[in-house]
């Protein structure tokens, strides 16, 4: 919604949009949050609806998206990860892990396990097929948008990115040369996980496991695994602070590559407007995942790694916009007609899905915080 529209009309459209986000989020998050009191799910839904209102009213997609996304990741850390710290793990996981980042490089093992389950008749409800169906739905609805709107780990990287005022380290041309590293990691880990029948990503690279219980018994390998885990943690936490780029998501996350590949199934894109683009390439400098390179004629070329965060739209005066398969939707008239744009359809899907999904831990994290302060 541009500034040319009167403030009253903008507020009306933004109010309608936020109500449309609020309703499904409130009803579905009550299911997702399990036994958590409705007060907390209401608060979480209002947070999502407020984000929707702010985006449509101001037109600043990435600024408000980032707040929601980072708070959601923080809530995940508070509720889920911290509760794991006291847990006892005695062995490496041998089944497909339930974390999406680990599941992509484990996919071949996953198929193998399904084959075994089929042969033995031992189906599991919350098993890989259920998760596979959830992933398919998410991919059809928001595609690569997952990495900037719903991933509970990406929010950490993205939030930290915004803390530094300017980059202390510039990512040079080597960053573009290594930009396919997540895809390479994905291919390699698919093969090695199958060869070893182990979730190799969890054991060797995951910075989130925060436990040493899964690590190898041998001293040399164990030390190497430690170093890689800390390097990965540094890429997640220190990398964005130094470079203002999402270093972990751009170079070490195999799920980013997985989603970049399958994200083609989803219709939403960020597309340069040839008539308005001046070729200044300000967008490439600001893109937190280095998904824009200089294409033919010095114009921006959007790589499949774009996760539709909207950051480049704020840096570019009209040269980039959200589209459906590269095309704009037909323009309409009327105060609420501006809502029927490719941008708003995407934001609606991404924010609603992100808010419902994060209701698995968001309301519970609010409750944890309240209980902590009351005690």
């Amino acid at each position: 919604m541009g500034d040319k529209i009167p403030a009253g009309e903008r507020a009306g459209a933004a109010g309608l949009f936020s109500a449309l986000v609020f309703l499904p989020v409130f009803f579905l998050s009550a299911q997702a949050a399990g036994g958590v009191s409705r007060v907390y799910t209401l608060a979480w839904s209002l947070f999502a609806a407020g984000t929707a209102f702010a985006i449509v009213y101001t037109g600043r997609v990435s600024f408000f998206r980032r707040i929601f996304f980072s708070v959601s990741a923080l809530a995940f850390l508070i509720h889920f990860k911290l509760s794991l710290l006291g847990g006892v793990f005695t062995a490496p996981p041998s089944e497909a892990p339930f974390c999406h980042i680990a599941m992509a490089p484990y996919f071949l093992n996953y198929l193998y396990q399904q084959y075994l389950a089929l042969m033995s008749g031992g189906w599991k409800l919350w098993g890989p097929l259920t998760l596979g169906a959830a992933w398919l739905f998410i991919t059809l609805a928001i595609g690569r948008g997952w990495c900037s709107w719903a991933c509970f780990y990406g929010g950490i990287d993205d939030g930290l990115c915004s803390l530094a005022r300017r980059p202390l380290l510039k990512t040079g041309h080597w960053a573009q040369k290594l930009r396919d590293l997540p895809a390479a990691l994905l291919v390699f880990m698919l093969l090695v996980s199958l060869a070893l029948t182990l979730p190799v990503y969890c054991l060797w690279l995951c910075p989130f496991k925060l436990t040493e219980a899964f690590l190898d018994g041998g001293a040399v390998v164990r030390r190497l695994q430690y170093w890689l885990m800390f390097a990965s943690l540094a890429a997640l936490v220190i990398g964005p602070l130094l470079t203002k780029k999402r270093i972990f998501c751009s170079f070490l996350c195999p799920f980013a590559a997985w989603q970049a590949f399958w994200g083609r199934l989803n219709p939403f894109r960020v597309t340069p407007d040839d008539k308005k683009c001046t070729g200044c390439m300000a967008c490439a400098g600001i893109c937190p995942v280095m998904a824009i390179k200089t294409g033919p004629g010095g114009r921006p070329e959007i790589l499949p790694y774009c996760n539709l965060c909207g950051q480049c739209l704020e840096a570019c005066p009209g040269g980039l916009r959200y589209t459906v398969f590269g095309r704009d939707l037909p323009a309409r008239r009327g105060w609420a007609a501006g809502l029927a744009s490719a941008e708003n359809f995407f934001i609606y899907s991404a924010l609603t899905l992100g808010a419902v999904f994060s209701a698995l831990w968001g309301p519970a994290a609010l409750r944890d915080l309240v209980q902590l302060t009351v005690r």
Partner: protein
Amino acid sequence: MPALFSEGFLLGLSTGFYCMASCLPLLAPYLMAEGRSVWKINFIIFLEFLAGRFAAYMLFAFLAVMAGKAGRYAMPPWLLPACMLSCGLIMAALAVFRVASGTSACLLRADLDPFFRKLPVALGFVTGISICPPFAAGFLRLLELADVVKGFCYFSGFFTATSLFISPVLAGTPWIGRRANEIGRLTLLIAGLWYTGLGISGLM
């Protein structure tokens, strides 16, 4: 002799899955990095890789029989990790050169060094020796046989069956393009570092 060939073949069939899982992390990145959308070129790479493996098997058949005859029933313990280490270093070095130089100044150009064009043979050879776990099972049987011709027959059967399991890797190669080559080079680098690490830890 046919009985020995089929015995090796059956061992290869029963352990083929392990063989596939052991060889693919190496062969697939290599094909991705160096393959083309032209099916023939990829098939030649695949055949060269198999030729390297075959040479390794035959050499080992020979050595195992000799060792069996001499009553020595063990391989030197450093041999397998050393092969793994050399395999990893070759892959990592190739990948670093390819990533650093891009596609123009390519190390694999025939006029630069024809040796590098035969890399698949070398990779096949070192994987044939070191990486496949079922290989050890066949090796023990050869120690008992203590006859070179019988040993060749046995390992020919083993080689034929395991090759069947590796061949599906060709299925994806018609889609190899510039992007796949770029991803493949980085995959080769990671795989090279991985095998180097395995080799070093084995030697230690």
